[in-house]
C-alpha cells in the first residue's frame, strides 16, 4: 500500500495510535478513543483510519457522526460499507443503506451470491442487515430470503430467525440450527480444518490487496518504536518464537523481528475462525454460562467430550501451560505495542502471569468467550487478516499448527474482556485453563468444539421451535416447548417473557401475570415485553401493580417505548385518557417503529371517540408491522362501528389470517358476516370452515342464548342484547366472548346509559368473577337481568311504535 511504501517519520506512530484507540474502545473510554482516532485520521487519512474513526463514533452511540463521516468519502472496503449501511439503517435511511450494500451500476443490483463473495466472513451479518432493509421497505419475500441465507451462513445468529418468524415465515428450527451447515461455512471449527476459514477470509480481503511484506514492515516499525522496557521483553519472546517457527523465519525474513512477525501472522490468522465460533453464541448471552458443563439434552457424543475435556484440563494445567502462558503474555505485549489488533489488553496479562499458579480447573471454562458482544462487527484488524490468511496458507503446513493451538483463546479472551472488564483476572485465568485443553492432540479439538457447538445448536433449536410457535400464535405449543426447557434457561427473562406472552395471547391473563411478575423478580431491568405485562395488568384491573411498574420503568429508562406504553396503560386504566394518549404518543416519539404503541394509542382514541385519529394510528401500526394483528382488528372494529361491514370483514379476516387461533376474531367475523349486504351464500361458501367454527361456537350456547341471537337479528343495534349475550357467556365461563359482547354493548351505547354494563366489564376479572359465583353476585346478575329485560321490553315497544 502506498502509505506504507513511503512511510515518513510521522507515520511511525500509526500502529501505536491504532492500538491506543482500540484499547480505549475496549475500556469504554469512548471520548478518548474518538479523540485519538480523530488524531490518527488527521495524520494518515487512510481508509483504515477512516474506518477506525467511524467505528469509534458508532460505538460511542453516535451513528450519525459515523454516517456523515463515511458518506463524505468513497468507501471501497466491505467493512466500511457495512458500517455505513448499518448507520444508514439506524438513521432510517433505508434506501441509501440498500444502495450502499448492493447498489451496483445502473440499477443493477448485486445478487446475494455476490454479497457473500464480497463480504466473506461478515456476509451473514450483511445479509441480515439487508433483510432488515427489505422488510422495512415491504419486500418481504426478498427479506426472508436474505434472512435465510444469513442463517445458513451463520446458524448462531438468532435475530434473522426471529425476523423470519415475525415475517410470518415458518423457518424450520431443525433445519436452521444444525451443525452440518456450520461445517460448510466460514465458522468451521478452527485448527485442523484451516482451509474453509481461510478461503473465505481470503476472499474477503482481496480488496485490500495487502502483501505480507507490508505487515512485516509494519511490525518492524512497531518494534523500533517500542520503548526500551518492552523491547527487552520482546527479545525474550523472539527467542521463543524463533525457536518454534524456524520455518516462518526462513520464509518471511531473516531477522528476529521477522520471526515475531511470523508468529503475529499465524496468530492473527487463527483467531478469526475461533472467534466467530465462540463469539456467535454470544447473541444468546443469558444462556451461555452453562455450556461448558451441562449438556442440555442427552445428545450423542457430549458426555465423552466432557470427560475428555475435564481430564485434559486437570492434567495439563502443569508444565505445558507455563510455557504457553509465558509465550502468550510475551507475544501479547508485542502485540499491544504493535497494536494492529483491536483487542490489546496488556494489563490483564500481567495479572495472568502472576496469578497463573492459583488457577485450577473450575467449571466455567468457556464462559468468558461466551459473553462476548452479539453481532460482532468486522474489525479493523483486517489488514493483518489478509496478510495472515495469505501467508498462513503457505505456512500452515510447515508450522504444524503450533501457534494456532493457543491462539483462538487469546482472541476470544480479549474480545470478552471488552465486555466484562471486571472479570479480567478470571478470564486470564481461563485462558490458562483453555490453553492446555486446546493443545490436545489435534484430533480431539474438533470433537470438543463440535460438541460445544452442538449443545448450543440443540438449545437454539428448542428456543427456535418455541419462538416459531409463538409467532404463529400456536400459543399452547409455544408454552409447552418453552416450559420444557432446562431450568437454567427457563428461569431467564427472555423465556419467561415469551411464555407470558403466550398466556397473554391465550387471554389467560392471570397466568401471564404470574410469568411476568417472575420476570420482574429475576430481571428487574428487563423492558422487553413489559408493554404486554402492562396490558395484562390493565385487563386484570391491577392498578397498583401497574402504576408501580410504570414508575419503575419510566425511572429506569426514559428512552424505551415500552416504559411509556406501560405509563399509558396505567393512566388508561384510571380513565385518564388524555394523559394516556400523551404517553402513548411519547412512546411513538421515542421509537417510531414500535407497532404496539400505535395500536394502544388507537384503542385510546377509540375510547375518546376520535375514530379518524384511531384509524390513522392503526394504519400506522400496520405500516410498521403488517403482521400486527391487533391493529387489523382495531381497524375492523372501527369499520364495524361505522357499519362498513365489508371493510370490517376484510380487516378481521386479515387479522385472523395472522392469528388463526383467535376466537375473538372468529366471532367478530361471524357477526360481521351477518351484516354484510352480500353476506349471503357466496361468502359463506367461501369460508366454510370459518363459518363452521363460528357456528360451533354458537352451539355451545344454551337455549336462552339462541333466543337472544334471534333478538339480535331483529334489533341489531340494541346494546342490551349484546350485554345479555355477554352475561350468558360469562356464565358459561367464556370470559372472552362475554367481554366482546360487553364491548359491543358499550360501543352501541357509549354514553353509558346503562351503567351496569360498565360495572360488569370492570368487574370481569375481579376475583369474585373468576371464582365460584357468590350468591350476591348471582342475585346481582339476576337483578340486572330483570332490569335489563324490562328495558329490553321497553325498547321493543318503542321499536314497534317506530
Amino acid at each position, binding site marked *: 500500500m502506498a502509505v506504507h511504501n513511503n512511510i515518513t517519520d510521522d507515520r511511525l506512530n500509526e500502529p501505536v495510535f491504532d492500538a491506543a484507540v482500540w484499547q480505549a474502545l475496549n475500556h469504554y473510554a469512548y471520548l478518548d478513543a474518538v479523540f485519538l482516532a480523530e488524531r490518527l485520521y488527521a495524520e494518515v487519512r487512510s481508509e483504515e483510519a477512516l474506518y477506525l474513526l467511524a467505528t469509534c463514533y458508532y460505538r460511542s452511540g453516535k451513528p450519525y457522526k459515523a454516517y456523515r463521516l463515511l458518506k*463524505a468519502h468513497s468507501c471501497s472496503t466491505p467493512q466500511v460499507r457495512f458500517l455505513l449501511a448499518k448507520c444508514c439503517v439506524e438513521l432510517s435511511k433505508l434506501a441509501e443503506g440498500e444502495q450502499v450494500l448492493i447498489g451496483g451500476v445502473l*440499477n443493477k443490483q448485486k445478487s446475494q451470491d455476490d454479497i457473500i463473495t464480497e463480504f466473506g466472513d461478515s456476509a451473514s451479518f450483511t445479509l441480515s442487515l439487508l433483510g432488515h432493509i427489505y422488510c422495512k421497505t415491504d419486500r418481504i419475500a426478498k427479506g426472508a430470503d436474505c434472512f435465510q441465507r444469513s442463517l445458513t451462513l451463520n446458524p448462531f445468529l438468532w435475530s434473522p430467525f426471529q425476523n423470519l418468524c415475525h415475517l410470518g415465515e415458518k423457518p424450520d428450527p431443525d433445519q436452521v440450527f444444525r451443525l452440518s451447515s456450520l461445517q460448510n461455512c466460514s465458522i468451521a471449527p478452527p485448527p485442523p480444518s484451516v482451509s474453509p476459514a481461510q478461503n473465505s477470509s481470503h476472499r474477503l480481503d482481496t480488496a485490500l490487496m495487502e502483501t505480507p511484506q507490508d505487515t512485516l514492515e509494519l511490525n518492524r516499525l512497531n518494534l523500533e518504536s517500542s520503548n526500551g522496557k518492552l523491547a527487552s521483553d520482546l527479545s525474550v519472546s523472539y527467542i521463543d518464537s524463533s525457536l518454534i517457527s524456524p520455518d516462518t523465519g526462513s520464509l518471511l525474513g531473516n531477522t528476529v523481528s521477522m520471526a515475531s512477525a511470523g508468529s503475529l501472522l499465524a496468530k492473527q490468522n487463527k483467531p478469526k475462525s475461533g472467534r466467530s465460533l465462540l463469539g456467535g453464541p454470544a447473541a444468546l448471552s443469558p444462556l451461555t454460562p452453562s455450556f461448558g458443563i451441562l449438556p442440555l439434552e442427552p445428545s450423542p457424543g457430549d458426555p465423552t467430550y466432557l470427560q475428555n475435556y475435564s481430564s485434559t484440563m486437570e492434567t495439563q494445567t502443569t508444565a505445558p501451560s507455563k510455557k504457553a502462558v509465558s509465550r502468550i503474555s510475551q507475544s501479547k505485549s508485542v502485540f499491544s505495542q504493535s497494536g494492529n489488533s483491536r483487542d490489546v489488553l496488556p494489563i490483564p496479562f500481567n495479572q495472568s502471569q502472576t496469578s497463573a499458579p492459583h488457577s485450577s480447573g473450575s467449571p466455567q471454562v468457556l464462559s468468558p468467550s461466551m459473553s462476548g458482544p452479539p453481532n460482532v462487527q468486522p474489525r479493523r484488524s483486517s489488514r493483518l487478516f489478509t496478510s495472515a490468511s495469505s501467508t498462513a496458507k503457505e505456512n500452515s503446513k510447515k508450522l504444524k499448527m503450533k501457534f494456532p493451538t493457543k491462539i483462538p483463546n487469546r482472541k476470544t479472551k480479549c474480545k470478552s474482556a471488552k465486555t466484562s472488564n471486571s472479570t479480567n483476572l478470571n478470564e486470564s485465568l481461563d485462558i490458562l485453563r483453555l490453553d492446555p485443553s486446546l493443545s490436545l492432540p489435534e484430533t480431539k479439538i474438533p470433537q470438543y468444539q463440535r460438541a460445544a457447538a452442538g449443545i448450543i445448536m440443540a438449545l437454539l433449536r428448542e428456543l427456535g421451535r418455541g419462538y416459531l410457535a409463538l409467532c404463529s400464535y400456536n400459543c399452547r405449543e409455544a408454552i409447552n416447548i418453552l416450559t420444557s426447557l432446562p431450568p437454567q434457561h427457563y428461569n431467564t427473562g427472555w423465556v419467561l417473557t415469551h411464555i407470558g406472552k403466550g398466556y397473554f395471547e391465550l387471554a389467560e391473563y392471570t397466568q401471564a401475570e404470574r410469568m411476568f411478575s417472575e420476570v420482574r423478580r429475576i430481571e428487574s431491568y428487563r423492558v422487553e415485553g413489559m408493554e404486554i405485562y402492562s396490558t395484562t395488568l390493565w385487563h386484570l384491573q391491577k392498578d397498583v401493580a401497574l402504576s408501580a411498574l410504570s414508575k419503575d420503568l419510566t425511572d429506569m429508562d426514559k428512552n424505551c417505548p415500552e416504559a411509556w406504553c406501560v405509563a399509558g396503560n396505567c393512566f388508561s386504566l384510571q380513565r385518564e385518557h388524555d394523559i394516556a394518549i400523551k404517553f402513548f404518543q411519547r412512546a411513538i416519539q421515542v421509537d417510531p417503529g414500535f407497532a404496539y404503541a400505535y395500536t394502544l394509542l388507537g384503542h385510546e382514541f377509540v375510547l375518546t371517540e376520535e375514530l379518524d385519529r384511531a384509524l390513522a394510528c392503526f394504519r400506522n401500526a400496520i405500516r410498521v408491522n403488517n403482521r400486527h394483528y391487533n391493529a387489523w382488528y382495531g381497524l375492523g372494529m372501527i369499520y364495524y362501528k361505522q357499519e362498513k361491514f365489508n371493510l370490517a370483514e376484510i380487516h378481521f379476516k386479515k387479522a385472523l389470517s395472522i392469528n388463526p387461533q383467535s376466537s375473538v376474531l372468529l366471532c367478530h367475523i361471524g357477526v360481521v358476516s351477518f351484516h354484510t349486504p352480500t353476506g349471503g351464500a357466496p361468502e359463506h361458501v367461501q369460508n366454510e370452515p370459518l363459518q363452521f367454527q363460528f357456528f360451533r361456537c354458537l352451539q355451545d350456547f344454551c337455549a336462552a342464548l339462541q333466543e337472544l341471537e334471534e333478538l339480535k337479528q331483529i334489533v341489531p343495534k340494541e346494546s342490551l342484547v349484546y350485554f345479555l349475550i355477554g352475561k350468558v357467556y360469562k356464565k358459561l365461563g367464556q370470559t372472552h366472548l362475554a367481554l366482546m359482547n360487553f364491548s359491543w354493548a358499550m360501543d352501541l351505547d357509549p354514553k353509558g346509559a346503562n351503567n351496569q354494563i360498565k360495572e360488569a366489564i370492570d368487574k370481569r376479572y375481579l376475583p369474585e368473577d373468576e371464582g365460584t359465583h357468590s350468591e350476591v353476585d348471582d342475585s346481582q346478575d339476576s337483578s340486572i337481568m330483570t332490569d335489563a329485560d324490562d328495558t329490553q321490553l321497553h325498547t321493543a315497544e318503542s321499536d314497534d311504535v317506530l
Partner: protein
Amino acid sequence: MNVIDYVRDMAAAGLYSNVRILSSLLLTMSNNNPELFSPAQKYQLLVYHADAIFHDKEYRNAACKYSMALQQKKVLSKTSKVRTSTGGAASNIQAQSLPSEIEVKYKIAECYTILKLDKDAIAVLDGIPSRQRTPKINMMLANLYRKAGQERSAVTSYKEVLRQCPLALDAIIGLLSLSVKGAEVASMTMDATQSIPNLDWLSVWIKAYAFIHAGDNQRAINTICSLEKKSLLRDNVDLLVSLADVYFRAGDTKNAILKFEQAQMLDPYLIKGMDVYGYLMAREGHLEDVEVLGGRLFNISDQHAEPWVISGCHSFYSKRYSRALYLGAKAIQLNSNSVQALLLKGAALRNMGRVQEAIIHFREAMRLAPCRLDCYEGLIDCYLASNGIREAMGMANNIYKTLGANAQTLTILATVCLEDPVTQEKAKTLLDKALAQRPDYTKAVVKKAELLSREQKYEEGIALLRNALANQSDCVLHRMLGDFLVAVNDYQEAMDQYSIALSLDPNDQKSLEGMQKMEKEESPTDATVELDGDDMEGSGEDGDLEGSDSEAAQWADQEQWFGMQ
C-alpha cells in the same frame, strides 16, 4: 519620475479607483494640450484607464477605452517606425515597457464575451496573427468558436492550446465534446506526461470523458469508478460530480443523488453540477432539502445560474410555474449555456400552456447537451401537448437512432407510440424490449402497466408489478398495483398496497383517491356513511396525530346524529 510612472505603479499596486480618477484627469489634460504627453505615454494612460474601468465591471466602457488605446497604439507604431529608423535605443526600451497590444486585444475580447457579443470577440481575437496567439487567447477563441458552432476552428484552437500546454484538461474536455477521438487526444498529451510520475491516471481520465461525450454512459461509469478506486484520486470532487452526472444521464437517480451528496459534503462550496442535484432531489420529492440547498448556494454566489435553477426547481415542483419561469429566465441570463436552466424554463412554459416558447427552449437545451435524454423528453411532451404526434414520433425515432436502443430510448419511443391508437402493438413490443434490457426500469414498468390496464389484462399487470416491486419499492408502482387489485376485486390486497404507497409518500393524492374510491365502492349503504369515509380518509391518512380540533368536533356531531338515526 514621470507622472505616467506613478500611474503605472498605482496600477501595478492594484489601486484601480485611484488610477481611474487620476488617468481620467491626465487624459483630459492631454486632450486639451496634446503636447503634454507623448503618444506612447497617452497609450499607456489609456490602457491603465481602461484597466481601471474593466476592474469596475463597466465592460462596455472598458471595451471602448481599450479600442481607443489600440487606435493610439497604431499611431504610435507609425511614429515609432520613423523613430526606430533614426535609431533611438531609449524609445525601444520604452516601447518594450508598454502594455502589449495583444493583451489589450484579449481584454477587449474578454469584455465582449462578458457582454455576450461573441461575434465581436471572435473578430477581435481573429485579428491576432496565429503565431502571436498565446494559449490563453487560443483557449478563449476555441471556446467562442465552439459556442458559435464553428467546430473545425474550435478543434484547431484547442489543439493549439494542447500543443503548448499538454496538461490543459479543459481543452481536452473541449476537444472530446467536439467528438474528437479519445485516442487522438491522448496521443497529444502522451509525450509530455510519460515522464511525469503518478500521472498514469491521465489516460484513463481521458477515456472516461471520451465515453461521457460519446454517450456511452455504462462504460463511462465503469471508467470513472475505476479511477476513483485508485487511492490517489479517492474523494475527488470533480470526478464525483462527473460520475454523478453520468449516473443521472444513465437514469440511475439513486446513485446520482448519492454521489452528488458526497461531493457536496466534501466541498460545501461546490456549485458546479448542483443544479442537476437540486433537480433530482426535487423530482424525488425532497423539496425541503432542495430549498435548503438553494439557500446555501445563494449564499455562496448569486452570480451563478445554479442557485437560481435550484430555487426554480423548487418552485416548479411546488407547482408555482410562473415563479419557476422567472427564476429559470434569471438563470439563463446569468449563464446562457445552462442546460438545466433551459429545461426548467421550458418545462415551466409548457405547464403554463405556452408550448411554442417551450419548444424553443428545449431545442436550445438539446443543442447544448445532445446526450441528455430529458431534453428530448421535454420536447416530446411539448409536441404531445400540442397534438403533434407526428413530430413527437419523428423526434423519438430520431433519438432512438442516434442514441442507440437502450431501455430509456425504447421507453421514450414507446411512450409516444402509446399516444397513437394505431401503434399500440408496437409500443408493447418496444416496452418488452426495454424491460428485457433493464427489468427494473421504473418508467418502462409504469408504461407497460398502463398499457395492460388499458387492455384490461389485470392479472398480467399484477404479475408485472409484483415482479418489479420485488426489487424496489416505489410509491407509484404500489399504487398501480393497488388499482389493478381493485380491478380484480381483491380489496384487501389493494388496501395493503395503497397503504404501502401512502407510507412511502404520504402526499400521494392518487393513492388517497384510490383508497377512498374503494371504500365508497365497498360501502354503498347510504350517503352519510360515504361522507364519513371521505372525511376520515382525508384527515386520517397523513399520519398526523395532532389533527385539528374542529374536525374532531365535526365527527362528534356526526356521531350524535348517527346515533339519533
